[in-house]
């Protein structure tokens, strides 16, 4: 599903990290447009800048130079508080290591995301439908330690979409899963995109996983090598 409206617009994006006295050039001039409702896979070797690109789009770190517009907002001009608001309302992450809060049940992990977004009332019908899609309704009262990897990742996806973010950034969501669970999670992500029109960017090392997206970005040495 692609409605033709640009939700992410990146021009000449550069990111320099300082590791001690050494400058690391993580992104060397990225240009990218992503349309609302698009599912984009990003592949590339380690150190190619995939995660850095995600961290910038998700407002976890500011760009060094260049222009990044997310949902009509210029990230380069944002304060830390603005970027925090972006993570609350516009962008959500799904991580390779699930990153659930270990002390809380699956239900509370999802509730925390709603609470932080200032939405304390119960999730809406659309989310309930997504929960059915995720197949974890029976496992919501368990803590992460009592859930399998596949179940934890589904909870992480539920937590990511509970506030209906404009963009879902999935950083190697199948990296810690076996083949069966990987397929299930990828199918879910594709369904979320197809049924709910969720804009998704997904980092993966796996070409089969990348094939689930509408198009695939190949990154190398901080640049986009090609788009297929």
């Amino acid at each position, binding site marked *: 599903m692609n409605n033709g409206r640009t939700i992410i617009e990146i021009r000449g994006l550069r990111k320099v990290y300082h590791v001690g006295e050494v400058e690391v050039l993580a992104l060397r001039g990225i240009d990218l447009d992503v349309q609302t409702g698009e599912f984009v896979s990003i592949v590339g070797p380690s150190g190619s800048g995939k995660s850095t690109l995600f*961290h910038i789009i*998700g407002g*976890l*770190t500011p760009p060094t130079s260049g222009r990044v517009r997310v949902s009509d907002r210029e990230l380069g001009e944002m304060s*830390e*508080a603005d970027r*925090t*608001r*972006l*993570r*609350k*309302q516009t962008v*959500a*992450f799904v*991580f390779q290591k699930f*990153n*659930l*809060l*270990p*002390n*809380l049940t699956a239900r*509370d992990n999802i*509730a*925390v*995301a709603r*609470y*932080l*977004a200032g939405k*304390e009332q119960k999730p809406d019908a659309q989310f309930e439908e997504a929960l059915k899609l995720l197949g974890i309704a029976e496992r919501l009262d368990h803590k992460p330690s009592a859930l399998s990897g596949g179940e934890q990742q589904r909870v992480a996806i539920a*937590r990511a979409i509970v506030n209906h973010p404009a963009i879902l950034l999935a950083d190697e969501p199948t990296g810690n899963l076996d083949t069966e669970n990987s397929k299930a999670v990828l199918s879910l992500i594709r369904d979320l995109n197809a049924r709910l029109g969720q804009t998704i960017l997904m980092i993966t090392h796996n070409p089969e996983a990348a094939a689930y997206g509408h198009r695939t970005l190949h990154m190398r040495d901080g640049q986009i090598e090609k788009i297929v």
Partner: protein
Amino acid sequence: MTAKLVLENVKHRPVRTLLSTLLIAVPVTLILTLVGLTHGMLEDSEQRARGIGADIWIKPPGTSFATTLSGAPISEGLVEYLQKNELHIKLAIGSVVQVVEGITIVVTGVDLDKFSQMSGGLQYVAGGPPRAANDIIIDQYYAAQKKLRVGSTVVLFKKPWHVSGVFTGGKLSRIILPIRILQDLTSSPGKVSQIFLKLDDAKYTDAVVADLKMKLPDYPIYPMSELTSLYTASNFAGLNEFITVIVGLGVVIGFFVVCLSMYMAVLQRTREIGILKSLGASNGFIVRIILAEGLLLGVGGTIIGIGLSFGSWWLIRTLVPASIQMVIVPAWWPIAGAITLVGAGFGALYPGLNAARHDPIEALAYE
């Protein structure tokens, strides 16, 4: 949700939580025990002074009601003079005081017949007043502490004494001897340590005190009706300052315990802080949950500290009931709690700010 997050964090590491609250409880117990001892000792002294049944108390020049004096600098002639010449004095008796253990256990020498007239007499739980020259009477607290009973032998002034009676206490002192015997033992024949006056009517107390102050200007003279206001910590040199030091220590210990505990907790939860930040948690929210957890530990420490102060009270009452007295002072529970929470709050602030400053990307990469 904040409360749930904080509670789950506290429950997630029960040993850390228990150790932290126990450490926070130590200064709470310390403060409550000290305050309980201060109140207990003052109340006990006041009760024993009041139990004498006098209306006026005269101490030697250069002393005060709070001085536990060994020695007898007042001439017994003054007792006789007051009895014979002063208006409204029904009974004047002198007593000799001699410290025998620490600063709290004293022997008082008194004319037991006159003392009975003034106080209504001692209530004996066993035995009776001294009859022989080596007889001594003790109160039930001293008897319990030293495991003595009627017929036991107790060594005082380097000689053995036969316990002839055990009385209920609350009057004069823990150990009582006939005045002549104590005067001989302390080489102070014809001398007394203090004088108690019983008036024919208590309504003349102020007038008699005023008259005596004119005639005996160097002597501290106290109406017994003022004892309650006299027996306060502020009237005992250095006691308030001592309490302040202990309270200060309580704040400092609470601060360091919570600071260390929460600092460790923040280190252990670096990744979780990164997760919260990735979900859109603000720096203020991160500080708030760390602060709330520190304060929760403070509340737990206060409750345990109050419980442990009952343990102190029981131990003191069981082991040394005659030497020191402690009471439970509930009015100080909220004060001790507030002191602890101040320490805990400040202790959690630095780890909280430190957690808020975590870079979310580094925090998420933390193993």
